[in-house]
């Protein structure tokens, strides 16, 4: 592939998109998905998935935050004092989250109102902290960036899937566009899908489907 060109950037001989690095992105999408396999970040997955638009913005925000914090922590990893490393991680995450929140307020104000506290709560999202502790603290910036990207995408994938079903079943729309009415018949929205309980059921079904495809067994 394009490996020969990319190697110039990295000093070591490992290509930018080596098999190992590619796995960092693809694993969290499926076999190591933060929501369905590691079961992290469920809270926001239940809360912001009534419609696709806020879910999309939320996923994007988390993607930016995980990727950027992973890189920042990875760059700082050799200078961070062990005893205060969690606080340092928290400070870096909060920095990115606040920046993202300010940007949302400036450019997509209505969505930022809808997401309200949940963007702020990315700070305590287990996915972000988990990746910093487990990966960025002991890896170089580039793999850390890919790892953050992968996990952000894995989270986003599930969020979008859940939001797709919730919005189409709950309000008969996608991204706010009334699909059923456009085709010409009246759709009575399913109220359960608009409640967090609906999200719980959908996340459960997604986990079920995914596990039966992957042949996942509880004890391994």
């Amino acid at each position, binding site marked *: 592939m394009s490996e020969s060109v990319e190697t110039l950037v990295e000093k070591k001989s490992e290509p930018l998109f080596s098999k190992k690095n590619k796995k960092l992105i693809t694993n969290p999408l499926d076999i190591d998905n933060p929501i369905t396999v590691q079961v992290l970040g469920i809270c926001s997955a239940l809360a912001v998935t009534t419609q696709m638009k806020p879910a999309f913005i939320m996923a994007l925000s988390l993607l930016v935050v995980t990727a950027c914090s992973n890189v920042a922590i990875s760059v700082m990893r050799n200078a961070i*004092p062990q005893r205060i490393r969690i*606080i340092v991680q928290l400070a870096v995450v909060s920095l990115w989250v606040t920046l993202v929140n300010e940007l949302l307020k*400036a450019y997509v104000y209505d969505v930022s109102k809808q997401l309200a506290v949940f963007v702020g709560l990315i700070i305590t999202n287990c996915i972000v902290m988990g990746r910093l502790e487990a990966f960025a603290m002991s890896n170089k910036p580039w793999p850390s960036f890919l790892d953050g990207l992968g996990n952000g995408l894995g989270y986003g994938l599930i969020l979008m899937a859940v939001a797709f079903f919730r919005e189409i079943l709950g309000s008969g729309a996608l991204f706010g566009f009334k699909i059923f009415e456009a085709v010409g018949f009246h759709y009575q929205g399913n109220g359960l899908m608009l409640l967090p309980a609906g999200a719980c059921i959908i996340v459960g079904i997604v986990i079920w489907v995914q596990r039966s495809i992957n042949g996942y067994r509880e004890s391994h």
Partner: protein
Amino acid sequence: MQTKNEDYSVRQSNLYIIIYAAVLTLVCGGLLALASEGLKEKQQFNIALEQKQNILATVVDLQEGQDVNVLYAQLVNEFVIDYQGSIKEGIKPQDVNLAAEYKKPPEQRLLPIYEFKNESDSNKIDYVVLPVYGFGLWNDIWGFVALESDMNTIRGVKFDHKGETPGLGARISSDDEVQARYKGKSIYDNNKLVSVTMMKGEGNDYGDDPHKVDGMSGATLTAKGVNNMLTDYLSSYENYLKKKKANS
């Protein structure tokens, strides 16, 4: 490995930790301050736009894609009055900080007014929109009340809040149906200001009582906050309302 161990022990020293933490705080704080300053104008523009939207929404059905700024300039005449109902020159509504005014005694409050001009006769007004401010269960609540030209019948309300419970008290802003309950109610009973009270319990019909609206299940304390806010602020506007009534 040896150098790494040495490096590691330096990183354990208290001085290093304190300096590290201090520098980190400075860098993070600096970046955030920069971002906040840089984006301030854009954010305030959004907030102002939303306010105009809310004011318009109490009276007209806003269509998507309508230019709020144009419509607002066309329809609304904004100014600030004092408790006596006389216009305060030189102060614009956007300069009035309602959160601060709300804490003052009613006689000292600055009160913004938004009048909807009559399309054919610009001396007449069709509606008047009054900002209201109060305290809900957890934090501040606020909104706009639009009155018809009789200065008595409510044309529409738009509430918002800072931290009411989602799904319960937060319905004052998220649930259009809750706000629609106020439509057509009247605030005066034989020239006596009685405001409109949101009752306890939900699912009751108050259709024939002009001063009561159905409550929100599980949000009685937010409803109380709304009731206090309306009584408090509507009585602040009373002198102005009387003047308007005498004129028409």
